[in-house]
């Protein structure tokens, strides 16, 4: 009875932190920061791109900024970029993509602010080693309430890491592998076990090396997986190029007007939901609701996850990492999410009534036929694997903050315990069905949503510092970057 009540409370809180209230607050904070920064992400977009070529070094930090960027991309670009975006189109119609695009644009300002704060309030040794860095370290700078908010954030972060950062991802990798195995006539159970064991070994080898080894792995994997998916998507757009203009018109119309289409049959996905007959319809409210929600959850702006990694990057100015993070949101939401979304609309797959990953598979099947499981399946597996690696670090930063900085336990064993704990659930999560973990996943999902509350409070209070630093970096970019190159 007590347990049942607790579960009901948890689901109620989940509905708030992942529902309309949180969506309005996160999007609104992104919009407010866009105004306060004078639309910096648009005005200085050229600088955002050029900044990606920076050679690194100077001013402390442990890992090259591009490698840190790749590490964070590993977590930001996840299954949500495929399944989440498809769901947004299925539930909100083509117009959802317009609102998702806007969310990405505002998310760039929000992410840059939190990342800049994490750089400003970190502590580094003269040799560049970061002693303290990550989201809880800037949250605790908030006068009076900062201390307790930082502890709450750390708790929410490492609990959510186990669920959404670890077990869900391990299950997703196994799902992708099982889908591939089924498509090519292989044994699904053996494939899941093999996937779990391989994943366990790889993750253990990588995370034992800390942020440096995670960043190394991400640097090799991320450009490959991003290019793989973008090329597959653009290839599909070229096959359906004749529909491109109509697709854009549909997206813009759907963003402001209710829409209705006749339901069609799925060609290859074969879901029992996909039967012809009847109509599908979307209101403008649904386009906004699902476009914004899936955009926000994909780029994680405002949740406070990414600053846990950015704080370990080499940098000469806190604003520089903020600019890196703007490019991260740009690639995640404005490029990769749009690849999925436009593919689903341009191929007409959105009229089948399918949702989630099967809808994306259906869209790619319409262009690539039997090759689609390979193209999307591999992308899904890579997206989930890199998310698992990066969340290991996000969780570790907060685990160490809680046990070592607050409860004063020795840091080395605390880190080791985390890394051992991190690999234990991988095999069960890969092999067993989702139903076994449903309640824990929902709990960790709720914790993940709750992370935004202390983080947003800190962002609102410390925004003047981030605004000053980002503005200073934007105008001094050339002086900082090219003077340094000349010296070398």
């Amino acid at each position: 009875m007590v347990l049942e009540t607790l579960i009901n409370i948890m689901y109620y809180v989940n509905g708030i932190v992942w529902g309309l209230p949180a969506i309005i607050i996160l999007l609104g904070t992104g919009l407010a920061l866009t105004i306060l920064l004078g639309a910096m992400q648009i005005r200085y977009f050229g600088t955002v791109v050029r900044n990606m070529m920076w050679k690194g070094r100077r001013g402390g930090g442990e890992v090259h900024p591009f490698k840190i960027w790749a590490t964070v991309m590993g977590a930001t670009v996840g299954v949500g970029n495929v399944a989440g975006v498809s769901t947004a189109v299925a539930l909100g119609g083509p117009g959802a993509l317009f609102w998702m695009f806007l969310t990405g644009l505002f998310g760039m300002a929000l992410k840059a602010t939190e990342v800049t704060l994490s750089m400003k309030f970190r502590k580094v040794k003269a040799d560049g080693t970061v002693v303290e860095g990550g989201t809880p370290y800037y949250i605790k700078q908030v006068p009076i309430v900062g201390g307790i908010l930082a502890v709450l954030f750390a708790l929410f972060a490492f609990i959510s890491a186990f669920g959404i950062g670890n077990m869900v991802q391990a299950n997703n990798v196994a799902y992708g592998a099982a889908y591939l195995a089924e498509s090519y006539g292989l044994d699904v159970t053996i494939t899941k076990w093999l996937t779990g064991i391989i994943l366990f070994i790889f993750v253990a080898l990588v995370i034992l090396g800390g942020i440096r080894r995670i960043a190394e792995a991400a640097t090799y994997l991320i450009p490959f997986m991003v290019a793989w998916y973008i090329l597959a998507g653009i290839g599909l757009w070229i096959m359906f190029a004749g529909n491109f203009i109509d697709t854009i018109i549909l997206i813009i119309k759907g963003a402001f007007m209710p829409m209705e289409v006749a339901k069609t049959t799925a060609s290859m996905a074969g879901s029992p939901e996909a039967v012809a007959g009847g109509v599908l319809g979307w209101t403008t409210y649904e386009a906004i609701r699902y476009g914004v929600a899936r955009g926000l959850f994909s780029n994680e702006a405002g949740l406070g996850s990414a600053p846990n990694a950015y704080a370990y990057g080499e940098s000469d100015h806190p604003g520089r990492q903020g600019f890196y993070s703007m490019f991260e949101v740009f690639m995640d939401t404005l490029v990769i999410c749009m690849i999925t979304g436009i593919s689903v609309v341009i191929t007409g797959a959105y009229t089948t009534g399918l949702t989630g990953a099967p809808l994306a598979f259906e869209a790619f099947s319409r262009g690539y036929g039997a090759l689609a499981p390979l193209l999307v399946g591999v992308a899904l597996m890579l997206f989930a694997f890199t998310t698992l690696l990066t969340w290991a670090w996000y969780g570790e930063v907060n685990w160490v903050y809680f046990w070592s900085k607050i409860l004063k336990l020795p840091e080395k064993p605390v880190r080791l315990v985390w890394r051992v704990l991190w690999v234990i659930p991988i095999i069960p999560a890969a092999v067993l069905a989702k139903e076994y973990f449903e309640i824990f996943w929902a709990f960790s999902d709720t914790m993940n949503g709750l992370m935004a509350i202390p983080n947003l409070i800190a962002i609102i209070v410390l925004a003047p510092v981030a605004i000053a630093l980002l503005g200073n970096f934007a105008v001094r970019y050339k002086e900082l970057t090219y003077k340094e190159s000349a010296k070398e």
Partner: protein
Amino acid sequence: MSEIPVKLSYIPLVVWIVVIVLLAGFVFTTAFIQLNVKFSDEELTEKKQNKISEEVFGNLPAFIVLVVLILGLALIGFYKFVVGRSEATVSSAPGELV
């Protein structure tokens, strides 16, 4: 490394409140108007109307509580952060050297 002036005023807080209120107004008004949308399938129309009513108007108290909670705690921190000063400086160093 240089010292950068930071303007300490309530402007960011005011902008945040205004944006949240306007955005919430926009979403809730849109949802309200969409309650009258009719699809050719009656069942679909009813399903959408129920969903919007439940999700939007059922969530209104939770939304207000969440905004007040964030705003209240932010105000406490912000007041202490800016009290007695209108301008401060911040170093452009990427972190504190220890």
